[in-house]
């Protein structure tokens, strides 16, 4: 599980964690709580090139579907295969087992410009 302080965040409630070879992306605890019980996750396919801010995934809870945006430009390396059978992992473990997809070829400058944990927490206070 990535340490929250080592992740970066977006104002659209995605987290991103840069591991040894790729950037792992998911939705934040705040997002999963607001979205509610997740019943389906539609994830981008490996090899797809995505642009920062592009709607690339859909998370559906009972009655509502939410677009999830790419926090960084890059190429999708893999999506979380476990979510097809267990979409509720997004609720149980948004920042670990409920990760959505991994990106490669990301821009370090884009990553550095995302919110830190402290900035994201401050954003939540003002945006709520």
């Amino acid at each position, binding site marked *: 599980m990535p340490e929250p302080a080592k992740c970066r965040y977006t104002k659209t409630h995605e987290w991103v964690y840069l591991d040894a070879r790729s950037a792992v992306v998911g939705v934040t605890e705040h997002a999963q709580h607001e*979205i509610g019980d997740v*019943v389906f996750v539609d994830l981008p396919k490996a090899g797809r090139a995505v642009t920062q801010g592009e709607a690339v995934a*859909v998370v*559906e809870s*009972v009655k*509502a*579907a*939410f*677009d999830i945006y790419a926090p960084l430009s890059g190429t999708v390396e893999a999506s979380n295969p476990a979510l097809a059978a267990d979409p509720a992992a997004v609720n149980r473990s948004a920042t670990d087992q409920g990760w959505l997809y991994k990106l490669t070829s990301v821009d370090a400058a884009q990553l550095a410009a995302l919110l830190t944990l402290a900035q994201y927490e401050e954003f939540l206070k003002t*945006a709520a």
Partner: protein
Amino acid sequence: MPTRALLLETPALGAAAQMALDEAVLEGVEGLSLRFYRWAGPVPHAVTFGISQEYDAVLAAVRERWGGASMPLVRRATGGGIVHHDGDLTFSLTFPWPTLSDPGLVYKDIHLAAHLGFKALGVETALWSPGRTEGFRLQCFSGPEPKDLVSPAGVKALGGALRRLRGRGLYQGSLRPEVLGTGAELSRQAIVEGLSVSWKALFEPAEPSAAVSARAEELRRQRYESDRWNRRR
């Protein structure tokens, strides 16, 4: 001061074109808009189903429930279950949804507005509140879900589904006037009245812009009429 809102007047369309127009309005109209569908043909006879539903399961359910009737099956941009449009009053609402928030509360707000609109016209309804349920129903009108609008006898009259995209929301609703003992026109008045009062909106008739119409046409051809979209899973 009421907020200006659009009451979109659109031509009679098939299911794919209706879905495409809703998405184009979601993308291209700011503020609040309300649109009552006019279906092509004397009765619509179309089925729409939720964005994440499995096509084969939908097809099997449709065949079991409505036999071999030939009708378009179109995947919506919103969640929820199967809706057979066979005389329902179908409508869509787009609205600002700037902050990620509980969709259950948004759903409740919309249906509460409808409830108050019907009440103002002397028609009793209630919001269904059975408590927590597990998952969602394959078919939308097989029974009420939390915050659906129901008749005094508890029969589902209005259900809907939501989508949030870039700080805006789309609600697609299906209302059965006969459950409430009303006609389509009175039901339409109730929806407009309820939203006008509850959301402090002043609805003005309008047509979609040329840009929205062009985008809808593009979405109809490229997405909602395509097997790639409708049979994507």
